[in-house]
């Protein structure tokens, strides 16, 4: 579905629809806001995501254990007594090492959301900036960027990702950095297309005649008109980034222990489910699914609200 949405975003037809839409006006965003609020699934999803963020931020207040503490009492009897329990304070049970799964899930949610909400927007901004410059200046710069883009797409990102993680350490910062580096192409093509459409409009000519510099034109006149495209694209990239992080963590080259992420927790849970400790898979997977579902519907709602064709 994300694929389909992205294809729509990069189609020439969309570029035209979008360019028709002069959206620097305030009423555009107000209208879009109203349309978004009418979309029930999207609003519910915002609520769910809000709860998830609260869970990530303040969930620890409810935890009786920290995410790295080992409950020695349960070690060796995890299968029998390590399940979710109100009496011993392990709301979600413990993991295969006897650490509190609730605290770990909070920690993992924190990592995953952080990665998504930092790396996602930053990589779109990076791609958008490069795309805007390429579209605005055209010529050799544009050709170079497009060439690099094509070559980059031909390399499965996982190669780069895994090698980088394995070689340069596995901190949260490294993780975010490598995701941004891998995703520098996000939003590039579409913003480039938009800028190419818009730069020939009268209002840009007018600005140029007023003596504004290229940078000023880009920032003041073009950026507001492509902001909404960037917003849609970001909403598509965030769940993808969370997914990528989880996949890499699943492969064992993600975040360094004892820190964790949802992907790492799902991986650990999947590895031990043969022993009947299903809760170790169920809780992180449920949180992951909730995050993905709500992000999906929010993106859907944003698209409906902002895309001129969907109205």
């Amino acid at each position, binding site marked *: 579905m994300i694929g389909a949405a992205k294809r729509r975003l990069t189609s020439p037809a969309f570029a035209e629809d979008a360019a028709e839409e002069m959206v620097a006006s305030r009423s555009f965003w107000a209208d879009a806001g109203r349309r978004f609020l009418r979309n029930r699934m999207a609003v519910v999803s915002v609520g769910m995501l809000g709860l998830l963020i609260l869970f990530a931020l303040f969930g620890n207040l409810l935890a009786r254990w920290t995410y790295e503490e080992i409950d020695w009492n349960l070690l060796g009897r995890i299968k029998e007594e390590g399940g979710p329990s109100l009496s011993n304070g392990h709301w979600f049970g413990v993991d295969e090492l006897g650490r509190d799964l609730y605290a770990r899930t909070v920690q993992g949610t924190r990592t995953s959301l952080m990665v998504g909400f930092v790396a996602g927007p930053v990589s779109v901004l990076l791609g958008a900036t490069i795309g805007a410059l390429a579209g605005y200046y055209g010529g050799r710069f544009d050709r170079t960027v497009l060439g690099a883009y094509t070559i980059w797409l031909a390399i499965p990102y996982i190669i780069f990702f895994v*090698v980088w993680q394995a*070689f340069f350490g596995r901190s949260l910062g490294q993780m975010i950095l490598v995701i941004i580096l891998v995703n520098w192409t996000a939003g590039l093509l579409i913003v480039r297309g938009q800028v190419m459409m818009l730069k020939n409009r009268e209002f840009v000519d007018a600005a140029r005649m007023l003596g504004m510099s290229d940078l000023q034109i880009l920032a003041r006149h073009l950026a507001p008109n492509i902001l909404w495209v960037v917003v849609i694209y970001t909403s598509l990239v965030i769940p993808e980034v969370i997914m990528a992080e989880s996949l890499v963590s699943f492969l064992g080259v993600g975040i360094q222990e004892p820190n964790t992420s949802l992907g790492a927790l799902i991986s650990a*849970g999947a590895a031990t489910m043969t022993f009947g400790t299903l809760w170790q*898979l169920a809780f992180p997977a449920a949180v992951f699914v909730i995050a993905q579902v709500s992000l999906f519907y929010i993106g859907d709602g944003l698209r409906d609200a902002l895309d001129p064709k969907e109205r």
Partner: protein
Amino acid sequence: MLNYTLRRLLMVIPTLLILVVFAFYLMRLAPGGPFTSERPLPPAVMANVLERYGMDEPLHVQLWTYIRNILCCFDFGPSFAQKDRTVNDVIAQGFPVTLTYGFWSAVFVLLLGIPLGIVAALKHNGFWDYTMTGLAIFSQIFPNFVLAPILVLLFTLSWGLLPGGGWNGGQWQYVVMPAIALGTSYMASVARLTRGSMLEVLGSPYIRTARAKGLPERTVILRHALKPALLPTLTYMGPVFVYMITGSVFVDVFFSTGGIGQDFIDGAYSRDYSILLGLAILYAVLTFALTLMVDLLYAWIDPKVRAGLS
């Protein structure tokens, strides 16, 4: 067309070169190496080992040797971490595995995704249409690394129908789950895409013309609608194959198939430079070959594109 193919093939060379150079320096400039361990080797031994693998020479000389060996003798060098095995050995052993279930997975994606999409479009708003929408959302939410454990949970742990991992020479029982886990989400995307484009084509003027000719509905769909409806799907197959190659790394690891994905992850852990480089080249070549294949297929189907190429 031939011209175009040649031009595309020529593009492979600089791309691979960039990839190799980039990956080579990236790995080498990172701290640590294949022979760093908890207990450092005595300097004399270390020097010996390094000399044996040619790692005592300057980096650019090593890079040149590496490239020259590939060009002259298709020799990707010895593995650093696996004793007495060359990169060629490792690939020769693991690649057929990945290729086998990858192939079946692609068959699964196309043979299920396309008909499902077509049926959903023809029975617009009917049972299959809703089933498919459900499936699409499902696959969005359950990526392969969530789906795979669930599959194992059901088919292996609960019902005992299929083995939960291993390869066993590629017996069909061992291929089923890797292929499904790898393909499901793309199958859903393909179905959705096919449905959308089929609906669009069915509403187009030239389909109305075909109906006005008095052709039976079956002929209208098979002869007139199918080809254009499949074009968007075909374009999408390029990226899908790339994603599937990526996903295969996960499947190899999760199902312990012994495919190249596992070698890749192991190589990353043990800093096995030559394995990593060799596999990176393999993945990139695969990506190139598949996308080129898709593009050529597209040109073969769409006369306008074909005209544009020659």
